């Protein structure tokens, strides 16, 4: 197989995975509207997470070993770096898992009453941003720096759109509907606390991801990456997909599972 065929096949794979993720997202939204489908929502979230972990985050690369075992080689260092990045993601996911446990303890089978259209909108934006991130990383792996910069810029804009959609729009609407982070209030305290903690912690990760993207974009502009040496790009991409992975669980947890409870 020639190099260009390899690339177009890889790009095609990204498109197919994106279509799969879109189908699953639409399914979870409509199923949640129609009936109380907690087990199905969990299955869909796990399926989406598996697709992202394998096809976007390339978790299987952790199995790669260095054949020449030269500790000074870029390839060897990348293997070590990759392990470090995944250990960090593992520990970071405990924070998010803790927030999910808090949500299920405090709210159970209820959820805050939120703007569904906006929720689905920001979820779609983040999913599309992951698609472009995957594309950008692929371009870089095939030595196309311009293609990488173009796709990363789109990812950045979409990520910024997500961040502003949550912090500027969703938070304002929720506060207007009476959802407050009034922790002392036994009625609105827990639901407001859960909502702002979960979306806030996630938004903070989106924010740091945006900084990371800007840094690698700028490094690419300076010509610091090549098809063989671009660990920074891979790390930024994996981190960005991780932020999307967290939202795959947070979106149903906040918007879809349980009965909507109006804040008073």
């Amino acid at each position, binding site marked *: 197989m020639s190099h260009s065929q390899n690339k177009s*096949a890889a790009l*095609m*794979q990204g498109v*197919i*995975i994106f279509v*799969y993720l879109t*189908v*699953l997202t639409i*399914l979870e939204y*409509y*199923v949640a509207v*129609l*009936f*109380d*489908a907690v087990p*199905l929502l969990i*299955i*869909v979230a796990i*399926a989406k997470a598996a*697709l992202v972990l394998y096809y976007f985050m390339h978790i299987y690369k952790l199995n790669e070993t260095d054949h020449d075992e030269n500790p000074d080689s870029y390839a060897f260092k990348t293997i070590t770096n990759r392990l470090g990045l995944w250990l960090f993601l593992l520990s970071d996911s405990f924070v998010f898992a803790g927030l999910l446990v808090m949500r299920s303890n405090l709210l159970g089978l*209820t959820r805050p009453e939120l703007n569904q259209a906006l929720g689905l909108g920001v979820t779609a934006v983040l999913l599309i941003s992951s698609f472009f991130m995957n594309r950008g990383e692929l371009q870089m792996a095939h030595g196309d720096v311009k293609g990488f910069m173009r796709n990363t810029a789109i990812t950045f804009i979409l990520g910024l759109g997500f961040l502003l959609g949550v912090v500027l729009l969703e938070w304002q609407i929720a506060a207007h509907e009476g959802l407050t982070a009034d922790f002392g209030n036994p009625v609105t305290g827990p639901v407001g606390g859960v909502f702002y903690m979960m979306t806030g912690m996630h938004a903070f990760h989106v924010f740091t991801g945006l900084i990371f993207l800007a840094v690698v974009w700028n490094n690419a502009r300076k010509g610091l990456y090549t098809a063989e040496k671009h660990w920074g790009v891979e790390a930024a991409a994996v981190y960005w997909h991780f932020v999307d992975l967290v939202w795959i669980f947070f979106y149903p947890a906040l918007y879809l599972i349980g*009965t909507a*409870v*109006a804040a*008073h």
Partner: protein
Amino acid sequence: MDKKLIWIGVGILAIVVLGIASSVLFAEPPSFRGTSYAEPFPPATEIELTKSDGTVFRLSEQTGKIHLIFFGYTSCPDFCPTTLAEMKLLTDDLGSNAENVQVLFITVDPEKDTPERIQEYVSRFNTNFIGLSGTQTELQPIWQGYGIFREVTNQSTALGTVINHTVRLYLVDLEGNLRLSYAYGTPYQDVVFDIELLLDEAK
């Protein structure tokens, strides 16, 4: 296309089919969230008690209303005020449907609770709530009819003697039948959901 991707696509298709099939199976009909009585629904025990304004309240004469009945007493330290506060949130939540719902609070403490005292107590939560009291002989068949366990203890709080009593909430439908009941601690949104369902059915 990669074989693995095709198999994943088949798997996703299976999840989609499962989702659509279960939505057809489970989406209809909407079911009540409270504990339903067995059909045919038993007619609600008659409540005939004098109100604080001197008129007689008869449950059988009330038409076009769903009744939510709760038993308690005015010197109750815990469950009664909590439930009444939830009833207030519930009527707020119902909006315009609230006019089709009547909340009744019936005493388990006829010695202390006069009709005036209990009405004044529930009015603090919502002026449309009705508080009812009477003599022990008038109340006994009502307690029995709704299965209210009642026990005067020798404990007391700053409010007075503690009376242990059943804290379920009973829903009497538009036809005057006992339809649903709710355990203490049921989210009031579940009751709102059931009331809206009953009103929709009646339309």
